């Protein structure tokens, strides 16, 4: 039949089929007789074929059951069993059937259904590559051809053996033997490289070792020829076989140019695993991007560290990067290899092979192998000489922005490490070397903790780098076996480091649980020192500082019980210290301050006890003053004197003696001011001058004397502005001070009726504040100190009737707090701040006054808005625990009741609406 003919028949047939059967005959008769005959024939078929192909093709069980989809014979080879299967081909074990001489071979055959042209091309390429390679450690190609169906195949040498990890462990190979075995593998890869072939899939399962101990490299299935004509084929590859992410180089993972350095990387991972039992990175999810990111950003742990860790059977590795040992007893590996032997040169060799950047690895497999040879011969290795600079380089690369701004820090680090090297090399005997190592590590850690960390402290956005600098210092110190050490000075140093880390985590990142853990570690060390020497005064000072840091964290998370317990411990510690050094004014002052703190804590529950604490505090403060030298105070004594005056004035004011308090504050202020002017390095005095001036203003405000308050605020602001030039003053102190005093001046001006000036000042102050907060956007402490300035501004907005800008201000603040809450939704302090923002907004809208405990607005819309804000605040406090939140909840309930009493709608109805809005509100706040 001709195609043209069929199309004619088909058209007529289709037309005929659409007719009713009685009309068909007439229609067919009208056709060309030849066509008509054909149409009749097919119409008969239509009747017979009613069920033919009526349902789509069926797939029956036979498809699943046929495991015997394997060929029986390929040319002269009898197939015995499949031994491996890749994306496009299957490898069979086979025997040559001729001559009565049975030779076992491996035959790789393309899979059925996979014979598309791209697959065929790839398959033929592997065959071509293998044919070109001739090396005793590469499985040899013996023959090739096509099956009867036309499927290509090739015959390879069959390697009987174990994969390299299993072989090494089963034969309990020692370190040197493993290295020699590995070098033989290198020679095979290197020979392939010389023939311009890159393997690209080197992994333990592709390296078999025969009974005679000969390693054989297998599977060039995705190998690449380094020549132009095959480049186009690149993209095809991954379709046929997924890369093995654990061994694939970063450039393979992100699809960049592959080179011989790619094989260097995979070999490096194989060696890492061969010597430690673990891989440098483990990737459970085989997401290419995650793997590439991980290899890019994390430095693999040093092999010696991993080997030592897996040597301890019950030590579950905490480091998530580290894979579980691959072979059941990783201890087999470790038993054969002493982890400490890997430390240093071998660490460096392996890490050099698996560097992320190809150009920083060994430039050839040969070079890699040669460096191992040098180690085996006891010669200095190339990898060690450049590793130190590289490590610091990589570390700082991760923090590029901060480091650019602090070149000093980088120089410091490098200098410190150079000193380490120098001290190490000049030391003669082992013990001296050990001592030199100890001292130099301490030196590096110390410089990291002191100079570097401090250098970074005043840089915006530097908290993260500080965190890692301090963490690194701690790791260094821990490497000096802290547990066995009893040198109090050394333990102190480690505790200091933990304390510094805790401070960063608490204040900068709001990672409170981590901060607590760090403080607890510091605390344990401090207690250890004191247990050894209870009379150690200095150790007790440090104990107080750690206790107070830790108690602050508990205070932040609202655990008032633990805070109180720790604060009592501080007081007790100070009493002990006074036994060691009676009449030490500094300790007396600290004790007085501790007592005042305890008084605040118990004020509500037992006012008599609080009053007793306060009166003891006031009494001993007079003692402290007596123990201070009269006249000619040293800088430290001046500082103490001013602090005493401040506390004394505060306690007097509390006791209702405002006039006496004013006089005491004034004395403190004068002393602080003139002492600072005499020595501008006394930053504490600078801050106290401004602070005392504010405390004086506070007393004036409580007496409604706004003119005097204004005077003091103006003094404070001028004080800050006049000394901006002092480079030692922290820009943070200056900027926050400037903002707060500007706002306070604004409020005072308004109170004094100078409304226009007031508005200007408030606006300027808030701008200063928010600019400053934006500059330290990642720093939670800015937010913690914000309520003071914002509340002052809010009072102004309330008093001047500018409700809307005030609300906008609180909402902006709430937004900033929410950013931190999103990072850590359990942060009690941030939650508290958010509640504070909501409540303050509510107060502003409702015109709530704490003095009268009443609200001033009766406007329905305003009341509804206030209810919304209060409810949001209440919800937060209900989620939080602790007395503070309980008090706040009660207060908010009261405020809500006040608002509702002016809302005519029935309570129930009002509540429903609020609930709906609350949901909306929460969503908005969180977004």
């Amino acid at each position, binding site marked *: *039949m001709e*195609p043209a003919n*069929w*199309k004619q028949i*088909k058209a007529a*047939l*289709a037309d005929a*089929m659409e007719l009713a059967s009685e009309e068909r005959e007439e229609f067919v008769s009208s056709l060309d007789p030849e066509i008509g005959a054909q149409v009749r*024939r*097919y*119409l008969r*078929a*239509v009747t*017979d*074929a009613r069920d*033919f*192909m009526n*349902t*789509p*093709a*069926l*797939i*029956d*069980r*036979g*498809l*699943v*059951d*046929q495991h*015997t*989809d394997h060929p029986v014979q390929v040319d002269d080879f009898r197939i015995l069993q499949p031994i491996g299967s890749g*994306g*496009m081909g299957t490898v069979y074990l086979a025997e040559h059937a001729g001559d009565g001489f049975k030779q076992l071979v491996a035959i790789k055959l393309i899979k*059925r*259904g*996979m014979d*598309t*042209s*791209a*697959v065929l091309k790839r398959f033929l390429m592997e065959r071509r590559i293998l044919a070109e390679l001739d090396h005793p450690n590469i499985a040899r190609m013996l023959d090739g051809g096509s099956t009867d169906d036309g499927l290509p195949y090739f015959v390879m040498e069959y390697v009987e053996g174990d994969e390299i990890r299993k072989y090494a462990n089963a034969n309990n190979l020692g370190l040197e033997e493993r290295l020699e075995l590995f070098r033989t593998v290198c020679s095979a890869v290197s020979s392939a490289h010389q023939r311009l072939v890159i393997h690209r899939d080197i992994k333990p399962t592709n390296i078999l070792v025969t009974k005679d101990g000969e390693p054989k490299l297998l599977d060039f299935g995705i190998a690449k020829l380094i020549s132009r004509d095959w480049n186009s084929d690149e993209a*095809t590859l991954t*379709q*046929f076989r997924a890369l093995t992410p654990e061994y694939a180089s970063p450039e393979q993972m992100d699809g960049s140019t592959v080179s011989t350095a790619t094989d260097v990387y995979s070999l490096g991972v194989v060696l890492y695993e061969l010597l430690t039992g673990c891989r440098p990175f483990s990737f459970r999810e085989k997401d290419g991007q995650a793997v590439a990111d991980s290899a890019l950003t994390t430095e693999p742990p040093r092999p010696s560290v991993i080997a030592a860790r897996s040597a301890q059977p019950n030590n579950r590795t905490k480091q998530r990067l580290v894979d579980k040992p691959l072979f059941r007893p990783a201890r087999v590996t470790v038993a054969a290899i002493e982890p400490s032997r890997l430390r240093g040169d071998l660490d460096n060799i392996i890490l050099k092979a698996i560097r992320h950047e190809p150009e920083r690895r060994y430039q050839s497999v040969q070079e890699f192998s040669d460096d191992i040879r040098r180690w085996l011969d006891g010669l200095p290795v190339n990898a060690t000489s450049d590793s130190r600079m590289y490590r610091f380089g990589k570390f700082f690369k991760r923090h590029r922005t901060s480091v650019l701004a602090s070149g000093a820090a980088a120089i410091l680090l490098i200098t410190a490490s150079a000193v380490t090297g120098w001290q190490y090399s000049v030391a003669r005997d082992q013990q001296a070397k050990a001592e030199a190592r100890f001292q130099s590590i301490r030196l590096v850690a110390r410089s990291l903790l002191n100079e570097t960390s401090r250098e970074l402290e005043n840089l915006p956005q530097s908290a993260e780098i500080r965190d890692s600098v301090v963490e690194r210092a701690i790791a260094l110190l821990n490497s000096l076996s802290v547990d066995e050490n009893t040198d109090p000075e050394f333990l102190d140093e480690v505790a200091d480091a933990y304390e510094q880390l805790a401070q960063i985590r608490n204040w900068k990142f709001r990672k409170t649980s981590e901060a607590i853990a760090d403080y607890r570690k510091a605390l344990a060390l401090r207690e250890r020192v004191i247990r050894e020497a209870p009379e150690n005064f200095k150790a007790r000072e440090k104990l107080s500082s750690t206790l107070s840091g830790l108690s602050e964290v508990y205070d932040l998370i609202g655990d008032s019980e633990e805070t109180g317990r720790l604060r009592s411990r501080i007081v007790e510690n100070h009493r002990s210290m006074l036994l060691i050094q009676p009449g030490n004014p500094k300790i007396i002052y600290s004790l007085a301050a501790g007592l005042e703190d305890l008084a605040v804590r118990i004020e509500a529950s037992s006012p008599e006890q609080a009053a007793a604490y306060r009166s003891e505090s006031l009494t001993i403060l007079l003692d402290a003053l007596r123990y201070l030298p009269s006249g000619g105070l040293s800088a430290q004594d001046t500082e103490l004197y001013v602090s005493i005056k401040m506390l004394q004035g505060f306690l007097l004011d509390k006791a209702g003696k405002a006039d006496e308090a004013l006089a005491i504050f004034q004395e403190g202020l004068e002393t602080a001011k003139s002492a600072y002017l005499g020595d501008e390095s006394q930053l504490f005095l600078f801050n106290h001058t401004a602070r005392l001036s504010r405390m004086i203003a506070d007393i004036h405000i409580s007496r409604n004397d706004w003119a005097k308050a204004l005077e003091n605020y103006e003094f404070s602001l001028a004080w800050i502005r006049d000394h901006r030039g002092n480079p030692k003053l922290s820009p943070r102190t200056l900027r926050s001070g400037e903002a707060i005093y500007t706002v306070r001046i604004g409020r005072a001006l308004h109170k004094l009726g100078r409304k226009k000036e007031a508005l200007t000042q408030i606006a300027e102050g808030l701008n200063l504040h928010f600019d400053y907060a934006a500059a330290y956007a990642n720093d939670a402490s800015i937010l913690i100190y914000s309520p003071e300035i914002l509340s002052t501004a809010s009072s102004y907005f309330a008093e001047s009737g500018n409700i809307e800008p005030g609300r906008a201000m609180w909402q902006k603040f709430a937004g900033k707090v929410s950013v931190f809450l999103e990072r850590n939704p359990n942060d009690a302090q941030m939650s508290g701040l958010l509640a504070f923002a909501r409540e303050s907004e509510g107060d502003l809208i409702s015109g709530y006054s704490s003095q009268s405990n009443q609200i001033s607005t009766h406007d329905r819309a305003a009341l509804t808005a206030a209810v919304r804000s209060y409810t949001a605040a209440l919800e937060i406090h209900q989620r939080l625990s602790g007395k503070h939140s309980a008090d706040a909840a009660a207060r908010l309930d009261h405020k809500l009741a006040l608002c509702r009493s002016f809302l005519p709608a029935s309570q129930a109805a009002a509540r429903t609406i609020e609930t709906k809005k609350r949901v909306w509100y929460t969503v908005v706040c969180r977004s």
Partner: protein
Amino acid sequence: MPTEVTLLLNKLNEKGRATDRETLDRLLPLVYNELRRLAGSFLNREHAVSIQTTELVHEAYFRLTDQRSVDWENRGQFFAIAAQAMRRILIDAARARGTHKRDVEKISLDHAPEISAETDASLLQLDAALKELASLDPDQARVVELRYFGGLTIEETGEVLKISPATVKREWSTARAWLYDRING
């Protein structure tokens, strides 16, 4: 992340399908493997003796592509490839069973080898007849492949081939007649 099949399908669309043999060649093994795998899991899961290709092909489509980034035209391409792959799978299986027919009969009487053998024979005949039809009328042969091996409906087949459902119906019924006559005539 768009799947590999999605990327290839979109690439196919960019280049114009007729010329891009290479991309089709890459797609086929992927679809083939997925369909085989799915067939295995379907049959085992449901204790079914047999299933139709229809749900298998649709399931493969949902598994292999990211539907948000595949446009309608590429969906058609997918079904065309899937139908082709399904045909290969079934023919390969039938052929393989043919090769080992004696073994099969000996070993697994309980698997009703007669039915399988009969189906296999007619399937291989159908495949041969369809090849002949393709040489007469390649477009009509594609309709058969999509309908029978891909399990597509009249409408879906029309969408893939960009012809009206009425035309699909005419092509399909006349093709059945031709094939039946060719095999049994």
